[in-house]
């Protein structure tokens, strides 16, 4: 399998504070990779580093291109969609306008219209609320909207920041089921950041464990899941 994303020696900074210390990881084309870790380990920062919304040094290879130093908009236009923490809803716009914004850089109008219907088929709740102000949607609906908005880009790589955050368990299961479906059917590669290690490891093929801005452990999800320390610290049994 070809590597879609290859990160080497990545440092990230908030002002003068360093949050990532030379981390290395990679993601195979078509796979799901999970990044696990406690609060403050640098999971969200890793996603932000790829999107270049924080200052970075080191190398981020995406296909043939280097993402380091690019503008966020340019990274996105290359096919990297980000579902940010807090979901990033355009609260004063309608659900449908949010989805259309996801595809704002695309010029293939007919295909965009078809993708819109596809999202509505996948998340019927969004169709019911298509003309409603997105800020009035429930947390779960906004998460569905955020994922759909990101998919409207037809990304090669989808970055997901804690899609389970603040949601009822049943909705989390539903969202992860659909994410698997998206990975299977649309072959979208995903980099998933999660606190909920157990559900993330079920979806992911590979996983990395971050501790205070460094990679503490990595490997196939099954191996990580079986590891004693991971089980105690992050899976809680």
């Amino acid at each position, binding site marked *: 399998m070809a590597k879609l994303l290859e990160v080497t020696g990545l440092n990230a900074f908030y002002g003068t504070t360093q949050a990532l210390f030379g981390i290395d990881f990679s993601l195979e084309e078509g796979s799901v990779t999970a990044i696990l870790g406690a609060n403050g380990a640098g999971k969200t920062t890793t996603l932000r580093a790829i999107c270049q919304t924080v200052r970075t040094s080191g190398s981020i290879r995406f296909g043939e291109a280097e993402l380091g130093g690019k503008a966020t908009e340019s990274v*996105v236009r290359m096919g990297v969609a980000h579902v940010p923490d807090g979901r990033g809803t355009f609260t004063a716009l309608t659900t449908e306008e949010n989805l259309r914004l996801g595809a*704002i850089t695309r010029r293939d109008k007919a295909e965009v219209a078809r993708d819109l219907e596809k999202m509505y088929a996948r998340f019927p709740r969004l169709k019911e609320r298509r003309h409603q102000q997105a800020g009035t949607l429930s947390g779960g609906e906004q998460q569905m909207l955020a994922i759909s908005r990101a998919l409207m880009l037809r990304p090669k790589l989808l970055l997901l920041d804690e899609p389970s955050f603040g949601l009822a368990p049943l909705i989390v299961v539903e969202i992860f089921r659909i994410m698997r479906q998206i990975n299977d059917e649309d072959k979208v590669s995903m980099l998933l950041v999660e606190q909920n290690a157990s559900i993330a490891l079920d979806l992911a093929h590979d996983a990395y464990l971050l501790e205070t801005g460094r990679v503490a452990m990595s490997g196939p999800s099954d191996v990580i899941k079986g590891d004693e320390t991971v089980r105690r610290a992050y899976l809680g049994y």
Partner: protein
Amino acid sequence: MEGFLHQVFAGLATGGIYASVALALVMIYHATHHLNFAQGELAMFSTFIAWALMQAGWPYWAAFFATVAASFVLGLLIQRLLLRSFEDAPVLTNVIVFIGLLVIFNSVAGWIFDYTIKPFPSPFPKDAWYVTKYFSGHEIGSVGVTLCVLALLYSFFRFTPMGLAMRGAAQNPDSARLVGIRVSWMLGIGWGLAAAIGSVAGMMVAPVVFLDPNMMSGILLYGFASALLGGIDNPWGAVIGGFIVGVLENLMGAYVIGTELKLAVALLLIVGVLTIKPSGLFGRVVVTRV
């Protein structure tokens, strides 16, 4: 009674111009949360461009549309070349830059076109079919132009992808970047649009107040009052505010405080709105969780 009605209608006509200025202010405020103090001088400068074109023999409407286009480019360039460096700067820095722009445009206009007061033509004839007892041709024409500008802007923001991108960028710049919108360019286009709207206001007001480098200073104050009264983040409010201020100003001038003190109405309104209802008549009250 007839005199009263005439004052009301004349107020609506100038109100249309205040509405355009307010609209331009709201446009920039909405996108950047800055009040553009140079908006009036920019409009004045645009009007001089139109005047120069007409002096060179251009017909009115050709000069009008060329000026709108030139103003758009001018606004865009100001944002791209100058203000971009201050995008993340504190509010006060921006205020000072705006005041700098105000002084620069005022002086440059005086330097190029000198300070003598010049007549500026109106495209609406005095004897047109739409002239009535209460409305002169220019009055009804400038209200019509304001409404056209409003309709065009509404359609642009409501129905075009670019308009949607601009609304997205204004509302949530971080998310906008994450869907690939070039937010900084959207601000530039916002500045261009605001300058273009301002130029229309300038060209509509110049036949009334005559053209000179200081012609917009009072009008900008009325524009501020209108935008604040309507709610600084609400374009519809700004337009309604403009008409209200226009009528109020005229009635107060005619019956209460006299024409010399008319400008005080604008200042009173600004102070009054800010103390009693800072969000304006139609503005949103923004509550921030701390």
